[in-house]
């Protein structure tokens, strides 16, 4: 049973905390560390690990109170992979020592995390991955290549899935690690994408040594651990409540309101259809957050992520059609290394191109539909030719 703390108690605690740690005069990092130690970071985490064991829906109370007091935040967009994916996995599978070591600097934004899952030969079929980890004394020696890795160039740590037993079917032979990105043998190269910039990286691992103490979960249980990460990823990508006309539909609506010359009768009904679709997705995300307040992320997160991807692509496509001549121009093809995806700050062409990634990153739309069909509707699974075959014998 979580401790019974009312909203009033919580507000009092935050008030007392702010009285003792003046946001105006306290060093940013000191403030964040103290907030973590007071259990006021992620409230649903256990006491001692930045939380108070409260229901998830209490978080907005804290965020509001800290924002109102002008408190520094932990730069949540920059450390999204840590917050959204690494942390829940460490919480679920880490030892006490591992939780103590990693969660505090993660939440405070001192240490950026990245995710080493996808490989050139293992995208949708993640469980086919080929990066090998071989036991050597107290260490594991890792060789392989990962791809589509956001923030790898800034990350201190990575969550990594590897193949430790090639002689068993693919799902059984994987093991999950935390990798020190500064370890010898880790090489990060930018991967330029269709927008001209490079959010992502390729990561080459050559004889990288990982101490066994950085393993998450049992040897051979990597797939199970990775599932936890992926479920949380989809919630992070698709979920969350937001105000009406936030995101891309807001940009499109603004364009329509401000430029009379773009208004066209046929496009108007398409605009309104997408406006309704955006509202439907927004209200559904809001409903999902209300449901999540009680429980854990489930396949509904996949639905939210699917809806968000489809909508972004349709809206950005319509925006280019509306703009006509202006749509033929692009703001900048310069190769850059952005920390976050900024849909709203860039040009319409950028939005159109970048949104193509939404239906690929974090699970393709096709895989998400499989998940909904199989786990929610109970329809038969895909025929798996590789089910009982040792990983080493699979065609590649």
């Amino acid at each position, binding site marked *: 049973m979580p401790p019974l703390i009312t909203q009033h108690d919580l507000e009092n605690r935050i008030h007392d905390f702010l009285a003792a740690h003046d946001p105006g005069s306290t060093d940013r990092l000191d403030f964040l560390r103290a907030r973590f130690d007071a259990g006021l970071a992620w409230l649903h985490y256990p006491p001692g690990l930045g939380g108070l064991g409260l229901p998830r829906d209490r978080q907005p109370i804290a965020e509001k109170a800290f924002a109102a007091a002008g408190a520094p935040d932990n730069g949540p967009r920059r450390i999204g992979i840590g917050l959204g994916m690494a942390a829940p996995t460490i919480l679920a599978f880490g030892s006490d020592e591992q939780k103590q070591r990693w969660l505090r600097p993660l939440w405070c934004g001192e240490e950026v995390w990245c995710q080493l899952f996808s490989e050139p030969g293992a995208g949708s079929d993640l469980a086919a991955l080929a990066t090998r980890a071989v036991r050597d004394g107290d260490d594991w020696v890792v060789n392989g290549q990962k791809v589509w890795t956001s923030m790898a160039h800034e990350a201190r740590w990575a969550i990594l899935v590897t193949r430790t037993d090639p002689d068993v079917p693919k799902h059984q032979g994987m093991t999950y690690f935390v990798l020190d990105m500064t370890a010898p043998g880790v090489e990060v190269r930018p991967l330029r994408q269709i927008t001209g910039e490079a959010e992502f990286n390729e990561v080459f691992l050559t004889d990288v040594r990982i101490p066994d103490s950085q393993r998450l979960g049992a040897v051979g249980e990597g797939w199970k651990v990775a599932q936890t990460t992926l479920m949380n990823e989809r919630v992070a990508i698709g979920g969350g409540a937001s105000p009406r006309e936030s995101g891309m539909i807001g940009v499109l609506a603004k364009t329509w309101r401000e430029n009379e010359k773009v208004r066209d009768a046929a496009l108007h009904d398409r605009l309104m259809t997408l406006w309704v679709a955006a509202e439907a997705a927004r209200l*559904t995300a809001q409903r999902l957050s209300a449901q999540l307040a009680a429980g854990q992320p489930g396949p509904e997160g996949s639905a939210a992520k699917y809806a968000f991807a489809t909508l972004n692509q349709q809206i950005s496509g319509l925006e280019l059609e509306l703009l006509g001549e202006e749509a033929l121009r692009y703001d900048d093809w310069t190769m850059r290394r952005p920390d976050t995806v900024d849909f709203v700050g860039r040009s319409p062409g950028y939005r159109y191109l970048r949104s193509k990634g939404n239906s690929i990153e974090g699970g393709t739309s096709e895989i998400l539909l499989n998940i909904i*069909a199989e786990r929610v509707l109970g329809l038969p699974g895909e*025929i798996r030719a590789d089910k009982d075959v040792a990983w080493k014998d699979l065609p590649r």
Partner: protein
Amino acid sequence: MSDELLYSETEEELRTAVADLLADRAPWSAVLARTETAEPYDAQLWKALGTGIGAAGLLIPEELGGAGATLREAAVVAEELGKAVAPVPFLGNLMATELLLAARESGNGTAAAAEDLLRGIASGEVTAVIAIPFTRSPDTTYKGRVSVTPWPPREAPHPARLTGKVTSVAGAQTADVLLVPSDGSIYVVQAADARITPVTTLDMTRVLSDVEFDDTPGQLLAIRYEPLSQALLSGAAILASEQLGLAEQCLTTTVEYVKTRHQFGRAVGSYQGLKHRLAQLWVQIAQARAVARHAVSATGAEREIAVAIAQAHCSAVAVQAAEECVQMHGGIGFTWEHPAHLYLKRAKSSSIALGSPTRHRRRLAELVDLPAS
């Protein structure tokens, strides 16, 4: 608050009561059989639902004998009725109730008459409908083709004579009382005094009638149209929940079927060609639930926006679900003996009723300042 998008415990209890009744009294085979009789509406079922469970007086205040509930509870009833395509005049009676409740507040001396009718509805003695074509949307500027004498109407309640015809009225066949809009005012007419002719209707489970008045006696109820648009708005909100229920039922039935139907040595539901469409439909239905809940919870200026969103979205989802239901059942889905057609006919008709999706999007454009030109 986002909790309003969820269901309360009371709402779930009401749902169970309605679902149990419908499972017992309105299996689809019975609904189908009834469509070919002279009594397309099920009077016994309506009595059990209306007074047994109290669905007829759900919105009526307790002091007038009703349950004093809100549109949220009514929406749960509508979801279950949509799942069963049940032939009862719940929606029409609800809109008439909303009109009477609004007229009761209008304070032009007709409150007592409105209250009498509301008491009658709550007790199950009276079923009322608004005599208006079922296609009319809440932002209607409907004047009607019924003329009234004396004209112009006086403020106080007074007897009048009505002459004219209203086409495609839903639920008129079982109504005891008609609420007749005419040129800005609303009159109460006893159904027995009007000529009500059922028409052959696309939706066989919600039969429409043409209603004719020939120097028919009526009584003034309201001299403004505001109550009418509010009643239609409530009707459109409730219809969205009915469409949600219908879509859910179509999805459930179809998913069950594609798991058992085998072709080429596999369950047809194992093919991505079907799986993905069913998953997409599930996503649409999850969204329909959120917008439908919002439509029956929103108040003030947000209410009209929320209802337009819900109608634009849920109409399309119900049609998509019913069309997929027919298609994925293959040959059997095209037959008279399978219930899919009942759902398709209800879905397509409902999408046109109380304003088409296009109409609602156009209204929404005005409400959220996205003008067409």
